[in-house]
């Protein structure tokens, strides 16, 4: 069996979430990695993808229409390449979730999102109801279209392989959708999905000013990424892409420190697979304490500075 993985790159490396998708794909068969972008970006992306161990071949699609990962041309491209592949995969990233269901519809396939485990070539485990239940589903489609939950598969390494690169001809021309602009601030902190430690804040921080003042020094000490609850994001304490949960990022770091977060079902959905969870909350009844390995009950405005100083 040969499997096609749509791979995202960033700053000359394959994104960790895509390397998890590659790791999942190697359980299914030989892996071909598809990279897409304008001519220069696709060259750089192909070089990065060729280095990932487990990739047997890189398909490079370079064209201006592919510059911004717009779902319409990208889906047409993937469908045009779908040929004999038994499985089409991508990470469950914003881009993967945007394009893969469209691909599936064009192939008359029911997609299988957020795969957490591969049972066999037709059978997969995925979360439903915000991860409160795990469904094992079997697909009768001839081709399977999957997105892979990064937190569930150890990523393939970024370096070590040397796969051949093949340029593919791009004939897609969709112009119904136009890229206008992006606002993607770069931060010195690790990405949420790949961070070893995450410090996450909620409504308990009370203001954007406190959010920065209390959480940043702690995160600095730990080399941590900063996450947030939905309330913290909605209240403007933190940017939208730091939201952890059912509808935000799904994370599973070695250490997750939840500060002033109650632990609503939707938040737990995004972090309860973390290896070690610490809860700092003044309410001894807060649901977050039920999933925490270590709970410290008290005022975060005293505890967080003391913790930062003690590290």
């Amino acid at each position, binding site marked *: 069996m040969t499997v096609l993985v749509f791979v995202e790159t960033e700053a000359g490396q394959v994104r960790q979430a895509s390397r998890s998708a590659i790791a999942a794909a190697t359980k299914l068969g030989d892996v071909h990695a598809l990279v897409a972008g304008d001519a220069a970006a696709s060259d750089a992306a192909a070089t990065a993808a060729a280095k990932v161990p487990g990739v047997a071949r890189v398909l490079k699609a370079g064209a201006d229409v592919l510059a911004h990962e717009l*779902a*319409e041309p990208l*889906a047409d491209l993937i469908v045009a390449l779908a040929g004999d592949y038994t499985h089409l995969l991508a990470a469950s*990233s914003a881009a993967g*979730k*945007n*394009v*893969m*269901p*469209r*691909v*599936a*519809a064009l192939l*008359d*396939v*029911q*997609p299988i*999102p*957020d795969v957490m485990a591969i049972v066999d070539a037709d*059978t997969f485990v995925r979360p*439903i*109801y915000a991860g*409160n*239940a*795990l*469904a*094992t*589903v079997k*697909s*009768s*489609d001839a081709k399977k279209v999957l997105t892979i939950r990064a937190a569930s598969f150890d990523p393939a390494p970024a370096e070590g392989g040397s796969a051949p690169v093949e340029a593919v001809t791009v004939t897609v021309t969709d112009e*119904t*959708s*136009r890229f*206008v*602009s*992006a*606002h*993607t601030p770069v931060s010195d902190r690790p990405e949420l999905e790949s961070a070893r*430690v995450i410090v996450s804040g909620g409504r308990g921080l009370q203001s954007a000013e406190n959010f920065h003042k209390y959480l940043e020094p702690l995160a600095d000490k*730990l080399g941590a990424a900063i996450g947030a609850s939905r309330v913290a*994001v909605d209240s403007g304490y933190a*940017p*939208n*892409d730091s939201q952890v949960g*059912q*509808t935000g990022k799904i994370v599973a770091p070695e*250490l997750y420190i939840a500060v002033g977060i109650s632990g609503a*079902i939707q938040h737990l959905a995004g972090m309860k697979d973390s290896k*070690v*969870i610490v809860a700092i909350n003044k309410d*001894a009844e807060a649901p977050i304490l039920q999933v*925490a*390995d*270590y*709970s*410290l009950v008290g005022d975060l405005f005293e*505890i967080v500075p003391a913790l930062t100083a*003690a*590290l």
Partner: protein
Amino acid sequence: MKILVPVKRVVDYNIKVRVRSDGTGVETAGLKMSMNPFDEIAVEEAVRLREKGAATEVIAISIGVQQAQDTLRTALAMGADRAILVLTDESPEPLTVAKILKVLVEREKPELVFLGKQAIDDDMNATGQMLAGLLGWPQGTFASKVEVADGRVDVAREIDGGTETVSLALPAIVTADLRLNEPRYASLPNIMKAKKKPMETLQAADLGVDTTRRLTTVSVSEPPTRKAGVTVSSVAELVEKLRNEARVI
């Protein structure tokens, strides 16, 4: 401009479901059901567009069992003009939903279909993208801001590293993210008025759509439970445990 808004009846977001002991699914009997939260946001946005004069009619559609008409009544009370209920036996999968919606799009000829980004029961996050694919329309998923002008819709989208804006030629598909708006509560007079708004009922079988499921559920299980944690009494104890017991710092 007509707008279609597909709304799904789901277990209320405040309820933590239990897996049935025989592993065949989750227990939903007797649970409070509500409109999928993302669909409330989609209805709100569509109604606002009509209130601003950018749209002429908002049509809510639900596909499912007879009780989905309650969900449609809620959409009507929020301001939708009329509703269509498509009856099916059980909860259909996104491929089927998208095919049924395609038939209704061909009949109603809207310029926008506004869906939720994800149903909080199956967590598929697929139907909008699939409908867009079937129709060959552009898609603006995970929308946090929407502007309609000059035959296009500009959509600010929530993506992994921040946000981006795309401009789509109408007709188009948009799926709503949480921060698009704050949906209104239906007032009592509007709930009364909604009872008189038109609701059409169709049988999925009559629409010529093959509803055979492609995914069968082999089993449903509880996620692994975490072992009980401890409450520490001081910052010093926490640091000691993280260093020497958990060894994560």
